[in-house]
């Protein structure tokens, strides 16, 4: 006797690869998106908005060393620098007022008065970086500022450590749009295959009386759900491998698959089918459940930073994005695959696993196996 769970997985998988539309939406569509978005935005980098106040003026012009530091930051091509007038006594208030209408992150780097003098005399100078700790970009941004600062200091003096205030050492790399985008496409694919897969199998199979038939056999509800989750894991792995290979082959995107990536694949394979099962139970008609799945997945895709950094969203949308499960999958995948930020990846993986446990249990409890 073949395992019942294996049979469920195999049945789903055969149904998947025999459907051209399934192949299109799971494989071809994400690759098409990568090509399109890569072609449109691929040459540009993802830049962080950063306000900069240079207080180190001499005769109303920046001192050479402070200007050199600003140039060093600019040369990273990682920032859109927005200058704050040196005479602004409350630079933070200025940034707040200016950033909100432009949907920019509120981040301020201050080069203090006496920066050049300090460097020349004591060989030590401080800069201040102000930013919200909850800012999603904080880790990457600090890393890039640090790298630029260390590089600048080394240019001034061989004993660079004595020159500039040290930040926590973070390895950063120049992140292109396509690097940012590819984990988002993986997250999006996991979302759609998971939610729609569960809606189809639990909605459409119910309409076709397949679930009713299975409920009259020794198959248990748990075995059915495990089969569905197993199938989603296989699909998620295929999506991950195909998209990463494509990203590497076409755009040279290098990614690191680690334990967090695997954790996120497991989490997504539970989380999104769980959401689909909850939907399928609230909206009994297969067509209605499909529409509900669309209504849930599309806003989530855009708000959870699939296509563009959430930095660009209005504040209220940023708050809503925090409640989107896909946010944590996307962030976790970026942290693990691209940014090499294990601590952040762990946090996001744990949150995604927690949400996954919640939704899969809720979906399982709600699912009617018998007729009542």
């Amino acid at each position: 006797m073949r395992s019942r769970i294996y049979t469920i997985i195999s049945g789903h998988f055969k149904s998947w690869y025999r459907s051209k539309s399934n192949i299109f939406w799971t494989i071809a569509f994400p690759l098409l998106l990568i090509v399109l978005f890569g072609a449109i935005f691929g040459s540009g980098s993802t830049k962080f908005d950063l306000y900069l106040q240079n207080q180190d003026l001499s005769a109303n012009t920046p001192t050479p060393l402070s200007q050199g530091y600003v140039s060093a930051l600019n040369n990273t091509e990682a920032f859109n620098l927005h200058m704050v007038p040196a005479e602004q006594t409350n630079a933070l208030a200025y940034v707040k007022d200016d950033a909100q209408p432009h949907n920019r992150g509120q981040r301020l780097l201050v080069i203090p008065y006496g920066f050049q003098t300090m460097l020349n005399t004591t060989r030590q100078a401080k800069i201040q970086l102000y930013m919200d700790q909850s800012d999603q970009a904080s880790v990457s941004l600090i890393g890039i500022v640090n790298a630029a600062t260390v590089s600048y200091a080394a240019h001034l003096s061989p004993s660079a450590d004595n020159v500039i205030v040290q930040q926590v050492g973070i390895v950063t790399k120049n992140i292109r749009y396509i690097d940012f985008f590819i984990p988002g496409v993986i997250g999006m694919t996991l979302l759609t295959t998971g939610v729609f897969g569960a809606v189809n199998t639990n909605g459409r199979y119910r309409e076709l009386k397949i679930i009713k038939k299975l409920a009259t056999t020794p198959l248990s509800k748990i075995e059915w759900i495990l089969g569905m989750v197993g199938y989603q894991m296989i699909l998620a792995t295929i999506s991950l491998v195909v998209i990463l290979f494509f990203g590497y082959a076409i755009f040279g995107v290098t990614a690191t698959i680690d334990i967090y990536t695997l954790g996120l694949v497991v989490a997504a394979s539970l989380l999104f089918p769980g959401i689909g099962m909850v939907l399928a139970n609230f909206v009994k008609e297969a067509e209605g459940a499909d529409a509900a799945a669309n209504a849930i997945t599309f806003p989530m895709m855009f708000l959870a930073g699939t296509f563009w950094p959430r930095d660009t969203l209005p504040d209220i949308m940023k708050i809503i994005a925090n409640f989107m499960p896909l946010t944590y999958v996307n962030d976790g995948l970026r942290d693990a695959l691209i940014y090499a930020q294990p601590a952040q990846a762990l946090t996001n993986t744990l949150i995604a696993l927690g949400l996954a446990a919640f939704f899969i249990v809720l979906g399982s409890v709600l699912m009617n196996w018998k007729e009542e």
Partner: protein
Amino acid sequence: MSNGQPAPLPGQSDKIVLVENLSKKYGDNIAVNGISFGLTKGEVFAFLGPNGAGKTTTVEILECLRNPTGGQAIVLGYDVSKRSDQAEIRKRIGVLPQDFNAIDRLTVRENINYFGAMFKHQLDADKLIELVDLKDKRDEQFKKLSGGLKQRVGLAVSLVNDPDVVFLDEPTTGLDPRARRDVWGVIERLKSQGKTVFLTTHYMDEAEYLADIVSIIDHGQIIASGTPDQLIDSHGGKKTLIIRDAGEEGLKQLPPGLPKAELRNAGDIAIPLHNGELTNILMSLTKTLLHNKEIEVKRPTLDDVFLNLTGRRVSEEGN
């Protein structure tokens, strides 16, 4: 009853299914109202009635898909209300749900194996394919089959665990006449193999053709039970002499002294027959032009039984 062999049923040891005073309520709505019947090994039992009569609710209670509100239902010696007994029942019954469709993109063979894998023991898929006469379609995807062929796949799937009793819920609803006949052929083969079959249907001719025992259910209650002949004899009324396409003109030509005739839909004249009257009526018709018409003696059917018991007929759609 859940451990090992089921407890014997006193005085009912030959019953594969035994239902006593079974009820099912949904709020104030009574779907099944205190019904009782039994099903003996090897017989085809037809549960006959219009849509909404309580057939599917009853069969789904027997399949452990719904819990009864009252009474008792024993299947293969196990109580459908007991969770531990339900596992045993599921191993040993075969089910074809109403409007069942197998998995679209799996082939006929793959579908049979898919559902077969849910059981510890499964019959050989090829033998089942042969039984339902689908050898040519073995590797065809389910979605490409016609309605009748799909239903035959459903029948094969319902037999995949070599069940002791097969529940077929409206197996021919929506099929064209030829496909219905094909499904009947499969059920006849099951009958010849000694399978016990519980069949729900709203087609009177289907029950009459296939069933050993018929129970007629209406508004949640069984209103008559017996063999088709017994039901027809006791509730079907008299035989009828039919004169085809005679019309109003024909009615006027009928000799006096005949039983009261009526004109039916297609212009047929129907004359109820009392014992020994047939010869006299035929003799009298030879004296009219009506003897040139097609004349037939029609035996009452289960349709007539249902009409006589309830005062209404069941439409083709089951309403």
